[in-house]
């Protein structure tokens, strides 16, 4: 029996390759995603562990990887470092000057690394990490040891087009805007790469001049433990000599903090990618199911013969399952290899976005290998089980019958009833989500959506019938007999057509649901911008980093500028929870009139206004005191004087900018709102403002339309990324069409011969097969787009707090339909050419 099974496999090479391809692609995607996620984690782990010293002295209340803001002005004096060095537990104490919010300009004046990954600027010192290895490795040239010298990480130097000896320009968040340095060398974090971040190392006094206004002081101190001293002992000892407002933490704590923050971000990426792998695998499962169904129905005679010769049902079932097993084994193995390549492709995509992953960490881990085989073999066996059972049900007498294949029956009444019930259950779940049943609305709708997609996939032969009939009628009209034959072919085995189309349907359902959400998001943003963009111009950095106040100073001097309002954001602990607070100047009230629920918008001194939702979160109201702790350890009690309706104009906790300054934060601006003076020409003013930031690509001046476009661009970027990931599922579905058509053509060899004998030309034969393919594609697309549309609308409804507008991406849907037709045409190429190459006589002679 096993030998027969293996013979079957070898004898059907082409079919084998095509159906295996579905497994290869699905598993390849899964393995690629897992490998990539692992590599991503490993990259950050290596960097974090490789760049953390035994212990770190920092200001109290500060957290590693602080996202934004100009940081504190509270500094470590050199005497403190001297005192630390004298401790017996301390082997070395190195003062560090860290600057955030800086950018590196390339030789062409463009930003290096975009605005995604951060640029870390600090002074060079030769400290070691927790493992006792140097934190930084010199790749070429030398370390900076003179003011005016700079050392960049290798990849940034390359991306910026810089060679040693070149002039390198940095954009700085405080003080001077641009400063140039001489490149003296390149380096890397120990542990490989920088994950896309830009490293810029300066000589210590230069770093102090740039970031600390020339004070001889440091922002943090890296401590190295003496022999035999633990991290905790080191940190505890250091604490005894630290002034108020500073603390020492162990290297392990720094690593844990970093892991936690980075980990969340990596998990999101990981789950996001795995979701697409799951879609691809489900689509692949449909194709495997379909392929085996067809193979089994074509082998009815052989199965019957086996049964007639005494094979038991179980043996026939097993022979099919064993065939599936070997296919899955082969497919999963090839999938793993493909996954390795794919993970590199993903890494390249992310690299282009500024997230650099070294090739060395992209390796197949045992977990990935096991997952790939378990999923690959499991899914294939499950998909092949039903067809295998069907093969075993063939009566031995079928061996004697003349008709070659047993027509697969249309769906029975019972199935239709069950399907209808399932659709209703799905609808009920979605309804429950929409009317706000307990728990997350989106979870209810998601569960309903999954039931819908699966049910529609299974019921495609019934639900799709009108589409098939419409296609037949249309093709008959346009292409005559050839079109009618094609339409009939798609209809003759609705189950097969339906199952093939289902694979495409799943992909397109997700595409159109995502499309609805994205269109609604864009529409919501448009409405929001329309309502809330109230100044003539906004000056911001796309990454919402701060920029020097000098820009605002210069803009104030521009002719025609009427009012200019500055805002500065900062991380802070509000009632002990991390938050992002906003400081605004007095001019703010002249540009923005907030919709006040209670109290007043006017703030001065230690006062604050809260958004309605934030007031709810904090359980605060007008008159309440809210404690806000700033980086550097200062805590200020702010009196709430007003509650405003939620708005994106300002943060949930808004206070006078002076509060931030008094708390020791260095001033910079995160947003400037500008109104032109009465009678001034808006276009001229914009041109003049643009000129101010001409050399500073991180800061842009935008009017309403520009801002709207910017946001739309960001939404679209995400959307295209999702579409890109879904493309794989669609490609797998197209392979399914190729497979089904190919098998159908083989099955209909005699019919093809007959048609050719009575006068069907090669060209028209190809047309016939192409039209059948288009019918399948259109069926999948129509079902998918309709289901996706419904799901998207329901999801949007459940998210209506955030997505206030509903928009249907109708033109995109038409585009998808057209793309589906194109895919249909492409899928038909190989089967059509094969069919038209068949010799008329061979076709007739085939028994």
């Amino acid at each position, binding site marked *: 029996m096993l030998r027969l099974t293996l013979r079957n496999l070898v004898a059907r090479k082409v079919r084998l390759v095509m159906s295996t391809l579905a497994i290869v692609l699905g598993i390849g995607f899964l393995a690629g995603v897992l490998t990539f996620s692992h590599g991503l984690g490993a990259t950050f782990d290596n960097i974090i562990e490789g760049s953390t010293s035994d212990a770190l002295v920092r200001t109290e209340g500060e957290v590693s990887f602080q996202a934004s803001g100009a940081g504190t002005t509270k500094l470590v004096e050199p005497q403190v470092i001297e005192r630390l060095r004298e401790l017996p537990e301390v082997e070395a104490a190195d003062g560090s000057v860290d600057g955030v919010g800086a950018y590196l300009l390339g030789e062409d004046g463009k930003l290096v690394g975009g605005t995604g990954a951060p640029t870390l600027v600090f002074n060079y010192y030769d400290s070691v990490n927790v493992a006792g290895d140097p934190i930084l490795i010199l790749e070429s040239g030398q370390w900076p040891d003179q003011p005016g010298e700079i050392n960049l990480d290798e990849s940034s130097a390359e991306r910026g087009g810089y060679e040693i000896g070149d002039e390198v320009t940095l954009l700085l968040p405080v003080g001077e805007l641009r400063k140039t340095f001489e490149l003296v060398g390149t380096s890397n974090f120990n542990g490989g790469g920088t994950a896309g971040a830009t490293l810029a190392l300066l000589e210590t006094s230069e770093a102090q001049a740039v970031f600390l206004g020339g004070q001889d002081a440091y922002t943090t101190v890296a401590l190295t433990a003496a022999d035999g001293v633990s991290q905790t002992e080191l940190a505890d000892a250091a604490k005894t000599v630290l002034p108020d407002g500073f603390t020492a933490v162990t290297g392990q704590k720094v690593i844990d903090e970093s892991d936690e923050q980075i980990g969340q971000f990596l998990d999101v990426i990981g789950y996001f990618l795995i979701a697409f792998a799951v879609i691809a695998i489900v689509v692949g499962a449909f194709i495997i199911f379909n392929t085996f169904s067809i193979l089994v129905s074509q082998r009815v005679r052989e199965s019957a013969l086996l049964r007639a010769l005494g094979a038991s049902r179980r043996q026939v079932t097993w022979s099919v399952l064993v065939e599936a097993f070997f296919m899955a084994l082969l497919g999963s193995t090839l999938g793993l290899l493909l996954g390795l390549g794919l993970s590199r492709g993903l890494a390249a995509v992310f690299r282009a976005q500024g997230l650099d992953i070294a090739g060395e960490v992209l390796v197949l881990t045992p977990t990935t290998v096991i997952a790939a085989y378990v999923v690959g073999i499991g899914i294939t066996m499950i998909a092949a089980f039903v067809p295998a059972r069907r093969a075993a049900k063939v009566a031995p007498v079928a061996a004697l019958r003349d008709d070659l294949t047993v027509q697969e029956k249309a769906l029975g009444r019972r199935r239709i009833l069950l399907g209808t019930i399932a659709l209703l259950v799905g609808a009920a779940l979605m309804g429950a989500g929409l009317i706000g049943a307990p728990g997350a609305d989106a979870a209810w709708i998601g569960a309903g959506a999954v039931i819908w997609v699966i049910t529609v996939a299974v019921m495609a032969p019934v639900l799709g019938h009108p589409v098939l009939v419409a296609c037949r009628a249309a093709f008959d009209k346009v292409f005559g007999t050839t079109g009618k*034959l094609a339409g009939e072919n798609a209809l003759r085995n609705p189950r097969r057509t339906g199952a093939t189309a289902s694979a495409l349907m799943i992909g397109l359902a997700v595409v159109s649901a995502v499309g609805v959400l994205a269109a609604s998001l864009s529409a919501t943003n448009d409405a929001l911008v329309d309502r809330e963009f109230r100044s003539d111009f906004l000056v911001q950095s796309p990454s919402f980093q701060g920029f020097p106040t000098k820009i605002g100073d210069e803009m104030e001097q521009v002719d025609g500028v009427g009012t200019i309002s500055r805002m500065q954001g900062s991380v802070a602990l509000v009632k002990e929870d991390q938050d992002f607070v906003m400081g605004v100047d007095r001019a703010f009230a002249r540009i923005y009139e907030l919709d006040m629920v209670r109290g007043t918008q006017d703030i001065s001194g230690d006062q604050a206004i809260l958004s309605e939702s934030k007031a709810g979160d904090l359980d605060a109201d007008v008159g309440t005191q809210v404690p806000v702790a700033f980086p550097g350890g200062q805590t200020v009690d702010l009196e709430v004087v007003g509650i405003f309706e939620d708005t994106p104009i300002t943060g949930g906790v808004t206070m006078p900018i002076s509060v931030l300054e008094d708390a020791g934060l260095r001033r910079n601006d995160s947003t400037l709102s500008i109104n032109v003076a009465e009678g001034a020409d808006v276009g001229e003013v914009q041109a003049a403002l643009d000129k101010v930031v001409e050399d500073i690509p991180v800061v842009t001046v935008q009017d309403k339309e520009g801002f709207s476009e910017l946001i739309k661009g960001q939404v679209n970027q995400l959307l295209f990324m999702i579409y890109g990931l879904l493309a794989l599922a669609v490609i797998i579905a197209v392979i399914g069409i190729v497979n089904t058509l190919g098998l159908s053509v083989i099955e209909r060899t005699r019919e093809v011969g007959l048609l050719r004998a009575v006068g069907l030309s090669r060209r028209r034969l190809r047309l016939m097969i192409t039209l059948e393919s288009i019918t399948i594609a259109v069926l999948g697309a129509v079902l998918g787009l309709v289901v996706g549309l419904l799901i998207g609308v329901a999801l949007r409804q459940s998210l209506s707090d955030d997505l206030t507008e509903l928009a249907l991406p109708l033109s995109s849907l038409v585009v998808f339909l057209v793309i589906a037709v194109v895919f249909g045409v492409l899928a038909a190429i190989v089967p059509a050419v094969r069919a038209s190459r068949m010799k008329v006589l061979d076709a007739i002679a085939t028994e």
Partner: protein
Amino acid sequence: MTEQPTGGAPDGVAASAHDLVKVYGTEEAEVRALDGVTVDLMKGEFTAIMGPSGSGKSTLMHCLAALDTPTSGEAVVDGTSLGRLKDKALTNLRRDRIGFVFQAFNLVPTLTAKENILLPLDLAGKKPDPAWFDAVIDAIGLRPRLGHRPSEMSGGQQQRVACARALVSRPSIVFADEPTGNLDSTSSAEVLGFLRRSVDDFGQTVVMVTHDPVAASYSDRVLFLADGKVVDELREPHRDAILERMGALSDAATSKAG
């Protein structure tokens, strides 16, 4: 040169073979399925081709019907030499001037009887001549079944539909390869009777491959094939005469093998 005047050949030849040779395989495994066949098939005649299994009957028919290309020699249908025609021209020739009836699997399962009958005309984009269509349908006697699909008809009915399809485009010649091979004697008689009438009443030309003497006795002329050669011929055949010739042929074959 390739396109000789259509029809109206003075000698009334519908199709002819000139020294046709068809070789399958190479060297050791070489089979001469046709070994120099020269024959004229006359217009308005019902010709039967007989011979032992493997004697080359089907191969001869395929070569004459533009379904296969001979290794050497020339096949002419309705005055057109097939030798140098490309696939497209061959397709058109089959569609417009040749009718086919195969032993089995004659009908497209997705089409109704009527659609199957009209298929060659539809493919050519032509309208049927209503009077001719009616005459053919009445002759096969399946008018009430026109809307049925092949799966809803018996084998004999299916073969009669196939015959109607072969005739409806008024081809110059109809080729039938064992059209009754799968049928019982009653159904066979219906199909053969119909072919006979199409020659008598409509002046059709029919060439039929068969190994059944009863079937051959419906014809005007029987050609006997053995080892890829035409070895004998009978006019106005009777069943007994046919049986006798067949007997002689198979005796010859046995003695040669022995």
